[in-house]
Protein backbone atom coordinates (compact mmCIF):
# COMPACT_ATOMS: atom_id res chain seq x y z
CA UNK A 1 0.00 0.00 0.00
CA UNK A 2 1.51 3.31 -1.09
CA UNK A 3 1.46 6.28 1.24
CA UNK A 4 -0.21 8.28 -1.53
CA UNK A 5 -1.53 7.10 -4.85
CA UNK A 6 -3.14 9.24 -7.54
CA UNK A 7 -5.34 7.37 -9.98
CA UNK A 8 -6.50 8.99 -13.25
CA UNK A 9 -6.53 12.48 -11.80
CA UNK A 10 -8.06 15.20 -13.94
CA UNK A 11 -8.48 18.76 -12.73
CA UNK A 12 -10.46 21.41 -14.54
CA UNK A 13 -11.05 24.99 -13.48
CA UNK A 14 -13.92 27.19 -14.52
CA UNK A 15 -12.74 30.15 -16.57
CA UNK A 16 -15.45 32.42 -15.17
CA UNK A 17 -17.50 32.51 -12.01
CA UNK A 18 -20.64 31.80 -14.01
CA UNK A 19 -19.02 28.55 -15.06
CA UNK A 20 -19.40 29.17 -18.78
CA UNK A 21 -16.04 27.69 -19.77
CA UNK A 22 -13.50 25.25 -18.32
CA UNK A 23 -9.78 24.85 -18.60
CA UNK A 24 -8.04 21.51 -18.02
CA UNK A 25 -4.95 21.74 -15.81
CA UNK A 26 -4.25 18.08 -15.13
CA UNK A 27 -5.37 15.31 -17.43
CA UNK A 28 -5.60 11.66 -16.45
CA UNK A 29 -2.57 11.60 -14.17
CA UNK A 30 -1.39 8.50 -12.32
CA UNK A 31 1.28 8.79 -9.67
CA UNK A 32 2.48 6.62 -6.83
CA UNK A 33 4.46 8.12 -3.99
CA UNK A 34 6.60 5.21 -2.96
CA UNK A 35 7.36 4.42 0.62
CA UNK A 36 10.80 5.59 1.79
CA UNK A 37 11.52 7.31 -1.51
CA UNK A 38 11.69 10.91 -2.65
CA UNK A 39 9.71 11.98 -5.68
CA UNK A 40 10.09 15.33 -7.42
CA UNK A 41 7.73 16.98 -9.87
CA UNK A 42 9.20 19.63 -12.10
CA UNK A 43 7.56 21.80 -14.73
CA UNK A 44 7.02 25.34 -15.89
CA UNK A 45 5.19 27.92 -13.81
CA UNK A 46 1.46 27.50 -14.20
CA UNK A 47 1.78 23.89 -15.36
CA UNK A 48 -0.24 22.71 -12.35
CA UNK A 49 2.49 21.36 -10.06
CA UNK A 50 1.11 22.97 -6.91
CA UNK A 51 -2.42 21.95 -7.84
CA UNK A 52 -1.27 18.35 -8.19
CA UNK A 53 0.48 18.51 -4.81
CA UNK A 54 -2.59 19.97 -3.12
CA UNK A 55 -4.78 17.28 -4.65
CA UNK A 56 -2.32 14.65 -3.43
CA UNK A 57 -2.61 16.09 0.09
CA UNK A 58 -6.40 16.30 0.05
CA UNK A 59 -6.35 20.08 0.15
CA UNK A 60 -8.15 20.21 -3.18
CA UNK A 61 -10.45 17.77 -4.91
CA UNK A 62 -9.88 16.42 -8.39
CA UNK A 63 -12.55 16.87 -11.06
CA UNK A 64 -12.11 13.19 -11.91
CA UNK A 65 -10.06 10.35 -10.46
CA UNK A 66 -9.15 9.17 -6.99
CA UNK A 67 -6.52 9.99 -4.39
CA UNK A 68 -5.69 7.18 -2.02
CA UNK A 69 -3.92 7.94 1.22
CA UNK A 70 -2.80 4.68 2.87
CA UNK A 71 -5.39 3.00 0.66
CA UNK A 72 -8.26 5.25 1.75
CA UNK A 73 -9.96 7.32 -0.93
CA UNK A 74 -10.04 10.97 0.18
CA UNK A 75 -13.32 11.54 -1.67
CA UNK A 76 -15.03 8.80 0.37
CA UNK A 77 -14.42 10.72 3.60
CA UNK A 78 -16.23 13.67 5.09
CA UNK A 79 -14.31 16.84 5.96
CA UNK A 80 -13.67 15.77 9.56
CA UNK A 81 -12.18 12.38 8.67
CA UNK A 82 -10.26 13.74 5.68
CA UNK A 83 -8.73 16.38 7.96
CA UNK A 84 -7.82 13.73 10.53
CA UNK A 85 -6.20 11.57 7.85
CA UNK A 86 -4.21 14.57 6.60
CA UNK A 87 -3.20 15.44 10.16
CA UNK A 88 -1.82 11.99 10.93
CA UNK A 89 -0.29 10.84 7.66
CA UNK A 90 0.78 13.95 5.73
CA UNK A 91 3.16 16.76 6.57
CA UNK A 92 3.06 19.94 4.48
CA UNK A 93 5.84 22.38 3.73
CA UNK A 94 4.93 25.44 1.67
CA UNK A 95 7.03 27.98 -0.20
CA UNK A 96 5.60 30.92 1.70
CA UNK A 97 6.38 30.90 5.39
CA UNK A 98 2.91 29.76 6.30
CA UNK A 99 3.45 29.85 10.03
CA UNK A 100 0.94 31.15 12.55
CA UNK A 101 2.20 34.69 13.07
CA UNK A 102 1.03 35.14 16.66
CA UNK A 103 2.51 31.84 17.82
CA UNK A 104 6.12 31.11 18.76
CA UNK A 105 8.26 28.65 16.80
CA UNK A 106 7.62 26.03 19.50
CA UNK A 107 3.85 26.58 19.42
CA UNK A 108 3.82 26.42 15.61
CA UNK A 109 5.61 23.08 15.71
CA UNK A 110 3.27 21.76 18.41
CA UNK A 111 0.15 22.73 16.44
CA UNK A 112 -0.42 19.53 14.37
CA UNK A 113 -0.02 17.32 17.45
CA UNK A 114 -2.37 19.50 19.49
CA UNK A 115 -4.91 19.36 16.66
CA UNK A 116 -4.71 15.56 16.75
CA UNK A 117 -5.57 15.69 20.45
CA UNK A 118 -2.24 14.73 21.99
CA UNK A 119 -1.30 15.91 25.47
CA UNK A 120 0.40 19.29 25.62
CA UNK A 121 3.39 18.04 27.61
CA UNK A 122 3.93 15.20 25.16
CA UNK A 123 3.68 17.61 22.22
CA UNK A 124 6.11 20.01 23.83
CA UNK A 125 8.76 17.34 24.39
CA UNK A 126 8.57 16.17 20.80
CA UNK A 127 8.55 19.76 19.42
CA UNK A 128 11.59 20.72 21.51
CA UNK A 129 13.38 17.59 20.33
CA UNK A 130 12.66 18.43 16.66
CA UNK A 131 13.65 22.07 16.99
CA UNK A 132 16.91 21.05 18.68
CA UNK A 133 17.59 18.54 15.94
CA UNK A 134 17.23 21.26 13.31
CA UNK A 135 19.42 23.69 15.26
CA UNK A 136 16.62 25.97 16.42
CA UNK A 137 16.99 25.55 20.17
CA UNK A 138 17.69 29.29 20.55
CA UNK A 139 14.67 30.27 18.49
CA UNK A 140 11.92 28.31 20.24
CA UNK A 141 10.28 31.28 21.89
CA UNK A 142 10.58 33.54 18.85
CA UNK A 143 7.54 34.46 16.77
CA UNK A 144 7.90 34.01 12.97
CA UNK A 145 8.43 37.73 12.50
CA UNK A 146 11.72 37.45 14.42
CA UNK A 147 13.05 34.50 12.38
CA UNK A 148 15.05 34.52 9.15
CA UNK A 149 13.67 32.89 5.98
CA UNK A 150 15.80 29.76 6.48
CA UNK A 151 14.80 29.49 10.13
CA UNK A 152 11.12 29.82 9.26
CA UNK A 153 11.42 27.04 6.71
CA UNK A 154 13.19 24.83 9.26
CA UNK A 155 10.36 25.52 11.71
CA UNK A 156 7.93 24.52 8.94
CA UNK A 157 9.88 21.28 8.45
CA UNK A 158 9.72 20.56 12.19
CA UNK A 159 5.98 21.21 12.07
CA UNK A 160 5.59 18.86 9.10
CA UNK A 161 7.42 16.15 11.07
CA UNK A 162 5.59 16.68 14.33
CA UNK A 163 3.05 13.89 13.91
CA UNK A 164 5.67 11.60 12.34
CA UNK A 165 3.79 11.41 9.04
CA UNK A 166 4.70 8.82 6.44
CA UNK A 167 4.78 11.34 3.68
CA UNK A 168 5.97 14.93 3.41
CA UNK A 169 4.50 17.13 0.67
CA UNK A 170 6.73 20.07 -0.09
CA UNK A 171 5.72 22.89 -2.41
CA UNK A 172 8.79 24.85 -3.55
CA UNK A 173 10.37 24.55 -0.08
CA UNK A 174 13.51 26.38 -1.18
CA UNK A 175 11.80 28.86 -3.52
CA UNK A 176 12.03 31.82 -1.18
CA UNK A 177 15.49 31.06 0.25
CA UNK A 178 19.01 32.16 -0.60
CA UNK A 179 21.51 29.61 -1.91
CA UNK A 180 23.01 28.72 1.46
CA UNK A 181 19.69 28.27 3.24
CA UNK A 182 18.24 26.45 0.23
CA UNK A 183 21.09 23.92 0.29
CA UNK A 184 20.57 23.37 4.01
CA UNK A 185 16.83 22.75 3.58
CA UNK A 186 17.46 20.41 0.61
CA UNK A 187 19.85 18.35 2.71
CA UNK A 188 17.44 18.22 5.64
CA UNK A 189 14.56 16.99 3.49
CA UNK A 190 16.58 14.37 1.64
CA UNK A 191 18.03 13.11 4.93
CA UNK A 192 14.51 12.63 6.26
CA UNK A 193 13.91 10.14 3.48
CA UNK A 194 17.22 8.37 3.88
CA UNK A 195 17.48 8.29 7.66
CA UNK A 196 13.87 8.12 8.77
CA UNK A 197 12.39 6.21 5.86
CA UNK A 198 9.73 8.80 5.11
CA UNK A 199 8.35 9.53 1.66
CA UNK A 200 8.78 12.92 0.07
CA UNK A 201 6.72 14.40 -2.74
CA UNK A 202 8.39 17.56 -3.87
CA UNK A 203 7.33 20.25 -6.30
CA UNK A 204 10.18 22.47 -7.42
CA UNK A 205 11.63 24.63 -10.15
CA UNK A 206 15.10 23.74 -8.95
CA UNK A 207 16.35 21.02 -11.33
CA UNK A 208 19.46 20.26 -9.22
CA UNK A 209 17.36 19.65 -6.15
CA UNK A 210 14.82 17.60 -8.13
CA UNK A 211 17.47 15.30 -9.61
CA UNK A 212 18.81 14.49 -6.12
CA UNK A 213 15.46 12.72 -5.55
CA UNK A 214 14.85 9.05 -6.28
CA UNK A 215 12.12 9.73 -8.85
CA UNK A 216 11.61 12.79 -11.06
CA UNK A 217 8.51 13.55 -13.10
CA UNK A 218 7.97 16.35 -15.58
CA UNK A 219 4.54 17.92 -15.68
CA UNK A 220 3.96 19.12 -19.22
CA UNK A 221 0.88 19.48 -21.41
CA UNK A 222 -1.34 18.48 -18.44
CA UNK A 223 0.33 15.10 -18.12
CA UNK A 224 3.23 13.53 -16.21
CA UNK A 225 6.24 11.92 -17.81
CA UNK A 226 8.92 10.12 -15.82
CA UNK A 227 12.33 11.74 -16.20
CA UNK A 228 14.26 9.66 -13.66
Amino acid at each position, binding site marked *: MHPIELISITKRFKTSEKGEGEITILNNIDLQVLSGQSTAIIGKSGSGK*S*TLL*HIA*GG*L*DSPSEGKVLCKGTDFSSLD*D*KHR*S*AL*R*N*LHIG*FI*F*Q*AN*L*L*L*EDFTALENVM*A*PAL*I*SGKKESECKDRAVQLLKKLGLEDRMSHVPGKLSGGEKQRVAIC*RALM*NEPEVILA*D*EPTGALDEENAAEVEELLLNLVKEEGRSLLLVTHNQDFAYKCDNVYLLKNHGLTKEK
Partner: protein
Amino acid sequence: MILVGIAIGLIALLVISAVMNGLQNAQMDQLKNLESFDLIVVSDVLDPDEIESVNDVGEAFRFIETNALIIDETSESSQSIRIRAFDGDIFESPRFSKSLTVISGSKDGMAGLLLSYTTRNRLGIKYSDSIKMTFLKRGKTATIVPYSAHLPVSGFFSSKMSEFSSSTAFMDYSILSGIIGTDESKIAVYVSGNQKSVVQSILSLDPNAKVITWQEYNKALYSALMLEKTLMYVFLAFMFLIICVNLKNSTRRLLSNKQKEGAMLRALGCSRRSVNAIFLGQGLVISVLGEILGVVVGRILIANLQNILKLVDNVVYAVSGSRTVLTQIPFNASIGAIETFAVCLFIFLLSLMFTFIGCRRIYKSEIMEVILNASY
Protein backbone atom coordinates in the same frame (compact mmCIF):
# COMPACT_ATOMS: atom_id res chain seq x y z
CA MET B 1 -8.10 46.86 17.07
CA ILE B 2 -11.60 45.41 16.77
CA LEU B 3 -11.75 45.14 20.55
CA VAL B 4 -10.99 48.85 20.87
CA GLY B 5 -13.53 49.61 18.11
CA ILE B 6 -16.25 47.75 19.98
CA ALA B 7 -15.28 49.48 23.23
CA ILE B 8 -15.33 52.96 21.65
CA GLY B 9 -18.68 52.31 19.97
CA LEU B 10 -20.14 51.14 23.24
CA ILE B 11 -18.70 54.09 25.18
CA ALA B 12 -20.18 56.54 22.66
CA LEU B 13 -23.61 54.94 22.88
CA LEU B 14 -23.61 54.73 26.67
CA VAL B 15 -22.43 58.30 27.19
CA ILE B 16 -24.90 59.77 24.68
CA SER B 17 -27.76 57.76 26.17
CA ALA B 18 -26.72 58.86 29.66
CA VAL B 19 -26.52 62.54 28.69
CA MET B 20 -29.90 62.45 26.93
CA ASN B 21 -31.40 60.63 29.93
CA GLY B 22 -29.80 63.15 32.26
CA LEU B 23 -31.26 66.11 30.40
CA GLN B 24 -34.71 64.53 30.29
CA ASN B 25 -34.59 63.42 33.92
CA ALA B 26 -33.51 66.90 35.01
CA GLN B 27 -36.50 68.39 33.20
CA MET B 28 -38.89 65.80 34.60
CA ASP B 29 -37.51 66.26 38.12
CA GLN B 30 -38.16 70.01 37.95
CA LEU B 31 -41.67 69.34 36.74
CA LYS B 32 -42.37 66.87 39.52
CA ASN B 33 -40.78 68.98 42.22
CA LEU B 34 -42.58 72.22 41.37
CA GLU B 35 -45.31 71.99 38.82
CA SER B 36 -47.28 68.80 39.04
CA PHE B 37 -45.68 66.95 41.98
CA ASP B 38 -45.74 63.17 41.67
CA LEU B 39 -49.45 63.10 42.33
CA ILE B 40 -52.22 65.63 42.88
CA VAL B 41 -55.13 64.30 44.90
CA VAL B 42 -58.55 65.87 44.91
CA SER B 43 -60.56 64.43 47.77
CA ASP B 44 -63.34 65.62 50.07
CA VAL B 45 -62.38 63.21 52.83
CA LEU B 46 -58.63 62.76 52.81
CA ASP B 47 -56.18 65.13 54.45
CA PRO B 48 -52.38 65.34 53.95
CA ASP B 49 -51.63 63.44 57.19
CA GLU B 50 -53.70 60.47 56.06
CA ILE B 51 -51.96 60.43 52.69
CA GLU B 52 -48.52 60.69 54.34
CA SER B 53 -49.35 57.54 56.28
CA VAL B 54 -49.58 55.58 53.02
CA ASN B 55 -46.52 53.46 52.20
CA ASP B 56 -44.04 55.02 49.76
CA VAL B 57 -45.44 58.54 50.25
CA GLY B 58 -42.72 61.02 51.14
CA GLU B 59 -44.63 64.21 51.86
CA ALA B 60 -48.10 65.66 51.21
CA PHE B 61 -49.28 69.29 51.28
CA ARG B 62 -52.73 70.78 50.84
CA PHE B 63 -52.79 73.66 48.39
CA ILE B 64 -55.11 75.94 46.51
CA GLU B 65 -54.46 77.87 43.37
CA THR B 66 -56.15 80.52 41.31
CA ASN B 67 -55.39 82.74 38.36
CA ALA B 68 -55.16 86.49 38.84
CA LEU B 69 -54.17 89.66 37.10
CA ILE B 70 -51.47 91.41 39.13
CA ILE B 71 -50.76 95.10 38.72
CA ASP B 72 -47.74 96.77 40.28
CA GLU B 73 -49.21 99.94 41.69
CA THR B 74 -45.88 101.75 41.43
CA SER B 75 -44.97 100.95 37.84
CA GLU B 76 -48.58 100.20 36.82
CA SER B 77 -47.39 97.26 34.74
CA SER B 78 -49.51 94.11 34.81
CA GLN B 79 -49.39 90.40 34.17
CA SER B 80 -51.68 87.42 34.54
CA ILE B 81 -50.29 84.90 36.96
CA ARG B 82 -51.14 81.67 38.76
CA ILE B 83 -51.13 82.03 42.52
CA ARG B 84 -50.47 78.98 44.64
CA ALA B 85 -50.85 78.77 48.40
CA PHE B 86 -49.74 75.77 50.47
CA ASP B 87 -51.07 74.72 53.86
CA GLY B 88 -47.80 73.70 55.50
CA ASP B 89 -44.21 74.63 54.90
CA ILE B 90 -43.51 73.15 51.48
CA PHE B 91 -40.49 75.49 51.23
CA GLU B 92 -38.77 73.25 53.78
CA SER B 93 -39.47 70.16 51.70
CA PRO B 94 -36.18 68.75 50.32
CA ARG B 95 -37.66 68.15 46.89
CA PHE B 96 -39.38 71.51 46.59
CA SER B 97 -36.38 73.46 47.89
CA LYS B 98 -34.10 71.52 45.54
CA SER B 99 -35.79 73.21 42.60
CA LEU B 100 -36.83 76.56 44.06
CA THR B 101 -34.79 79.06 46.04
CA VAL B 102 -36.06 82.11 47.89
CA ILE B 103 -33.51 84.74 46.97
CA SER B 104 -34.67 87.78 48.89
CA GLY B 105 -37.36 88.50 51.47
CA SER B 106 -38.91 85.65 53.35
CA LYS B 107 -41.44 82.97 52.75
CA ASP B 108 -42.14 82.79 56.52
CA GLY B 109 -45.56 84.13 57.43
CA MET B 110 -46.01 85.27 53.84
CA ALA B 111 -48.17 88.29 54.40
CA GLY B 112 -47.72 89.25 50.81
CA LEU B 113 -46.83 87.82 47.46
CA LEU B 114 -43.70 85.83 46.77
CA LEU B 115 -42.89 86.53 43.13
CA SER B 116 -40.23 85.15 40.84
CA TYR B 117 -37.20 87.12 39.73
CA THR B 118 -38.50 86.76 36.17
CA THR B 119 -41.74 88.51 37.09
CA ARG B 120 -39.85 91.13 39.07
CA ASN B 121 -37.70 91.96 36.07
CA ARG B 122 -40.57 91.91 33.64
CA LEU B 123 -42.83 94.24 35.68
CA GLY B 124 -40.08 96.31 37.30
CA ILE B 125 -41.36 95.38 40.78
CA LYS B 126 -39.38 96.28 43.90
CA TYR B 127 -39.39 94.65 47.31
CA SER B 128 -42.45 95.77 49.39
CA ASP B 129 -44.17 97.37 46.37
CA SER B 130 -47.93 97.13 46.62
CA ILE B 131 -49.53 94.71 44.19
CA LYS B 132 -53.17 94.88 43.18
CA MET B 133 -54.59 91.45 42.45
CA THR B 134 -57.78 91.02 40.48
CA PHE B 135 -59.36 87.64 40.21
CA LEU B 136 -62.70 85.92 40.14
CA LYS B 137 -64.27 84.54 43.30
CA ARG B 138 -67.53 82.83 44.10
CA GLY B 139 -70.28 85.38 44.75
CA LYS B 140 -73.53 85.13 46.70
CA THR B 141 -75.86 85.85 43.81
CA ALA B 142 -73.74 85.38 40.73
CA THR B 143 -71.62 82.25 40.34
CA ILE B 144 -68.39 84.19 40.11
CA VAL B 145 -67.62 87.87 40.62
CA PRO B 146 -64.48 89.96 40.09
CA TYR B 147 -62.57 90.64 43.29
CA SER B 148 -59.58 92.84 44.05
CA ALA B 149 -57.03 92.66 46.85
CA HIS B 150 -53.92 94.66 47.66
CA LEU B 151 -50.83 92.90 48.93
CA PRO B 152 -47.19 93.88 49.37
CA VAL B 153 -44.33 91.97 47.72
CA SER B 154 -42.82 89.83 50.46
CA GLY B 155 -39.92 88.36 48.51
CA PHE B 156 -38.55 86.87 45.32
CA PHE B 157 -37.70 83.35 44.28
CA SER B 158 -35.95 81.70 41.41
CA SER B 159 -36.39 78.24 39.99
CA LYS B 160 -34.71 76.14 37.33
CA MET B 161 -37.94 76.16 35.28
CA SER B 162 -38.29 79.47 33.52
CA GLU B 163 -41.92 78.84 32.48
CA PHE B 164 -42.88 78.01 36.05
CA SER B 165 -41.06 81.08 37.35
CA SER B 166 -42.70 83.47 34.91
CA SER B 167 -46.20 82.23 35.53
CA THR B 168 -46.36 81.47 39.27
CA ALA B 169 -46.51 83.40 42.55
CA PHE B 170 -46.95 82.15 46.11
CA MET B 171 -48.96 83.55 48.96
CA ASP B 172 -50.12 82.59 52.42
CA TYR B 173 -52.65 79.74 52.51
CA SER B 174 -54.88 81.34 55.11
CA ILE B 175 -55.14 84.63 53.20
CA LEU B 176 -55.92 83.03 49.84
CA SER B 177 -58.32 80.50 51.32
CA GLY B 178 -60.04 83.42 53.07
CA ILE B 179 -60.60 85.01 49.70
CA ILE B 180 -61.43 82.09 47.42
CA GLY B 181 -62.36 79.44 49.97
CA THR B 182 -61.04 75.87 50.20
CA ASP B 183 -63.65 74.13 48.04
CA GLU B 184 -61.16 73.47 45.29
CA SER B 185 -58.23 72.53 47.49
CA LYS B 186 -55.94 69.77 46.32
CA ILE B 187 -53.19 67.74 47.93
CA ALA B 188 -49.69 67.71 46.43
CA VAL B 189 -47.95 64.35 46.99
CA TYR B 190 -44.26 63.51 46.73
CA VAL B 191 -43.84 59.78 46.26
CA SER B 192 -40.68 58.07 47.52
CA GLY B 193 -41.34 54.61 46.09
CA ASN B 194 -43.73 52.90 43.72
CA GLN B 195 -46.14 55.47 42.30
CA LYS B 196 -48.64 52.88 41.08
CA SER B 197 -49.06 51.27 44.50
CA VAL B 198 -49.44 54.70 46.12
CA VAL B 199 -52.27 55.57 43.69
CA GLN B 200 -53.99 52.28 44.54
CA SER B 201 -53.58 52.84 48.28
CA ILE B 202 -55.04 56.37 48.06
CA LEU B 203 -57.97 55.11 46.00
CA SER B 204 -58.56 52.37 48.55
CA LEU B 205 -58.74 55.05 51.26
CA ASP B 206 -61.16 57.17 49.23
CA PRO B 207 -62.63 55.52 46.13
CA ASN B 208 -64.12 58.89 45.08
CA ALA B 209 -60.75 60.66 45.17
CA LYS B 210 -59.35 61.95 41.91
CA VAL B 211 -55.66 61.14 41.60
CA ILE B 212 -53.74 62.90 38.85
CA THR B 213 -50.30 61.49 38.12
CA TRP B 214 -47.50 63.74 36.91
CA GLN B 215 -47.67 62.02 33.55
CA GLU B 216 -51.37 62.90 33.19
CA TYR B 217 -50.87 66.43 34.46
CA ASN B 218 -48.07 67.08 31.97
CA LYS B 219 -49.61 65.00 29.22
CA ALA B 220 -48.57 67.30 26.36
CA LEU B 221 -45.05 67.79 27.67
CA TYR B 222 -44.72 64.13 28.62
CA SER B 223 -45.74 63.13 25.09
CA ALA B 224 -43.16 65.58 23.74
CA LEU B 225 -40.51 64.08 26.02
CA MET B 226 -41.43 60.60 24.90
CA LEU B 227 -41.23 61.78 21.29
CA GLU B 228 -37.84 63.27 22.08
CA LYS B 229 -36.77 59.95 23.58
CA THR B 230 -37.98 58.08 20.51
CA LEU B 231 -36.05 60.48 18.30
CA MET B 232 -33.04 59.94 20.51
CA TYR B 233 -33.26 56.22 19.82
CA VAL B 234 -33.58 56.94 16.09
CA PHE B 235 -30.46 59.06 16.40
CA LEU B 236 -28.75 56.24 18.30
CA ALA B 237 -29.86 53.82 15.61
CA PHE B 238 -27.93 55.95 13.11
CA MET B 239 -24.94 55.75 15.41
CA PHE B 240 -25.39 51.98 15.52
CA LEU B 241 -25.30 52.00 11.73
CA ILE B 242 -22.03 53.94 11.73
CA ILE B 243 -20.61 51.50 14.27
CA CYS B 244 -21.88 48.65 12.08
CA VAL B 245 -19.95 49.98 9.09
CA ASN B 246 -16.81 50.38 11.21
CA LEU B 247 -17.13 46.88 12.63
CA LYS B 248 -17.74 45.44 9.18
CA ASN B 249 -14.67 47.18 7.78
CA SER B 250 -12.47 46.11 10.70
CA THR B 251 -13.71 42.54 10.36
CA ARG B 252 -13.01 42.57 6.63
CA ARG B 253 -9.44 43.78 7.23
CA LEU B 254 -8.90 41.06 9.78
CA LEU B 255 -10.45 38.47 7.53
CA SER B 256 -7.63 38.32 4.99
CA ASN B 257 -5.19 37.39 7.79
CA LYS B 258 -7.65 34.97 9.31
CA GLN B 259 -8.25 33.31 5.95
CA LYS B 260 -4.52 32.57 5.73
CA GLU B 261 -4.49 31.24 9.30
CA GLY B 262 -7.61 29.21 8.59
CA ALA B 263 -6.06 27.67 5.48
CA MET B 264 -2.92 26.86 7.44
CA LEU B 265 -4.88 25.17 10.21
CA ARG B 266 -6.85 23.19 7.63
CA ALA B 267 -3.61 22.06 5.98
CA LEU B 268 -2.38 20.94 9.40
CA GLY B 269 -5.47 18.82 9.86
CA CYS B 270 -8.16 21.00 11.41
CA SER B 271 -11.62 20.38 10.03
CA ARG B 272 -13.70 23.24 8.63
CA ARG B 273 -15.93 23.11 11.72
CA SER B 274 -12.96 23.29 14.11
CA VAL B 275 -11.49 26.28 12.26
CA ASN B 276 -14.89 27.96 12.33
CA ALA B 277 -15.23 27.25 16.05
CA ILE B 278 -11.76 28.70 16.74
CA PHE B 279 -12.53 31.97 14.93
CA LEU B 280 -16.05 32.22 16.37
CA GLY B 281 -14.52 31.71 19.80
CA GLN B 282 -11.96 34.43 19.13
CA GLY B 283 -14.75 36.74 17.94
CA LEU B 284 -16.76 36.02 21.08
CA VAL B 285 -13.81 36.70 23.36
CA ILE B 286 -13.00 39.96 21.52
CA SER B 287 -16.67 41.04 21.72
CA VAL B 288 -16.95 40.28 25.42
CA LEU B 289 -13.63 41.95 26.30
CA GLY B 290 -14.54 44.97 24.13
CA GLU B 291 -17.87 45.21 25.91
CA ILE B 292 -16.33 44.94 29.36
CA LEU B 293 -13.81 47.65 28.46
CA GLY B 294 -16.60 49.80 26.94
CA VAL B 295 -18.90 49.47 29.95
CA VAL B 296 -16.13 50.16 32.48
CA VAL B 297 -14.73 53.20 30.64
CA GLY B 298 -18.25 54.38 29.72
CA ARG B 299 -19.39 54.21 33.34
CA ILE B 300 -16.28 56.06 34.52
CA LEU B 301 -16.88 58.79 31.91
CA ILE B 302 -20.56 59.08 32.84
CA ALA B 303 -19.74 59.32 36.56
CA ASN B 304 -17.21 62.08 35.89
CA LEU B 305 -19.02 63.81 33.04
CA GLN B 306 -19.58 67.08 34.90
CA ASN B 307 -15.86 67.32 35.71
CA ILE B 308 -14.96 66.49 32.11
CA LEU B 309 -17.39 69.15 30.84
CA LYS B 310 -15.87 71.66 33.26
CA LEU B 311 -12.42 70.77 31.97
CA VAL B 312 -13.55 71.17 28.35
CA ASP B 313 -15.22 74.47 29.28
CA ASN B 314 -12.01 75.69 30.91
CA VAL B 315 -9.93 74.68 27.89
CA VAL B 316 -12.37 76.44 25.53
CA TYR B 317 -12.31 79.49 27.80
CA ALA B 318 -8.51 79.49 27.86
CA VAL B 319 -8.38 79.26 24.07
CA SER B 320 -11.30 81.43 22.96
CA GLY B 321 -11.98 83.59 26.01
CA SER B 322 -15.65 82.64 26.10
CA ARG B 323 -17.51 80.04 28.11
CA THR B 324 -19.46 77.19 26.55
CA VAL B 325 -22.99 76.24 27.58
CA LEU B 326 -21.75 72.82 28.63
CA THR B 327 -21.68 73.55 32.35
CA GLN B 328 -24.69 75.86 32.41
CA ILE B 329 -27.25 73.14 31.86
CA PRO B 330 -27.76 71.30 35.14
CA PHE B 331 -28.16 67.57 34.65
CA ASN B 332 -26.87 64.31 36.02
CA ALA B 333 -25.95 61.92 33.24
CA SER B 334 -27.32 58.52 34.10
CA ILE B 335 -28.12 55.25 32.43
CA GLY B 336 -30.03 52.38 33.95
CA ALA B 337 -28.95 48.77 34.06
CA ILE B 338 -31.61 47.71 31.56
CA GLU B 339 -30.57 50.35 29.03
CA THR B 340 -26.90 49.44 29.51
CA PHE B 341 -27.74 45.79 29.01
CA ALA B 342 -29.81 46.57 25.88
CA VAL B 343 -26.99 48.61 24.33
CA CYS B 344 -24.42 45.91 25.22
CA LEU B 345 -26.64 43.19 23.82
CA PHE B 346 -27.10 45.10 20.58
CA ILE B 347 -23.37 45.68 20.12
CA PHE B 348 -22.66 42.08 21.07
CA LEU B 349 -25.14 40.73 18.53
CA LEU B 350 -23.77 43.10 15.93
CA SER B 351 -20.16 42.03 16.45
CA LEU B 352 -21.24 38.41 16.60
CA MET B 353 -23.07 38.81 13.30
CA PHE B 354 -19.98 40.23 11.59
CA THR B 355 -17.77 37.55 13.15
CA PHE B 356 -20.21 34.95 11.89
CA ILE B 357 -20.24 36.46 8.38
CA GLY B 358 -16.42 36.52 8.45
CA CYS B 359 -16.28 32.93 9.65
CA ARG B 360 -18.65 31.85 6.90
CA ARG B 361 -16.26 33.34 4.35
CA ILE B 362 -13.38 31.47 5.97
CA TYR B 363 -15.54 28.34 6.10
CA LYS B 364 -16.29 28.56 2.40
CA SER B 365 -12.80 29.54 1.25
CA GLU B 366 -10.74 26.92 -0.55
CA ILE B 367 -7.47 26.12 1.22
CA MET B 368 -5.57 25.79 -2.01
CA GLU B 369 -6.60 29.22 -3.29
CA VAL B 370 -5.68 30.92 -0.02
CA ILE B 371 -2.32 29.15 0.20
CA LEU B 372 -1.48 29.96 -3.42
CA ASN B 373 -2.48 33.60 -2.87
CA ALA B 374 -0.28 33.74 0.23
CA SER B 375 2.62 32.25 -1.72
CA TYR B 376 2.64 34.82 -4.51
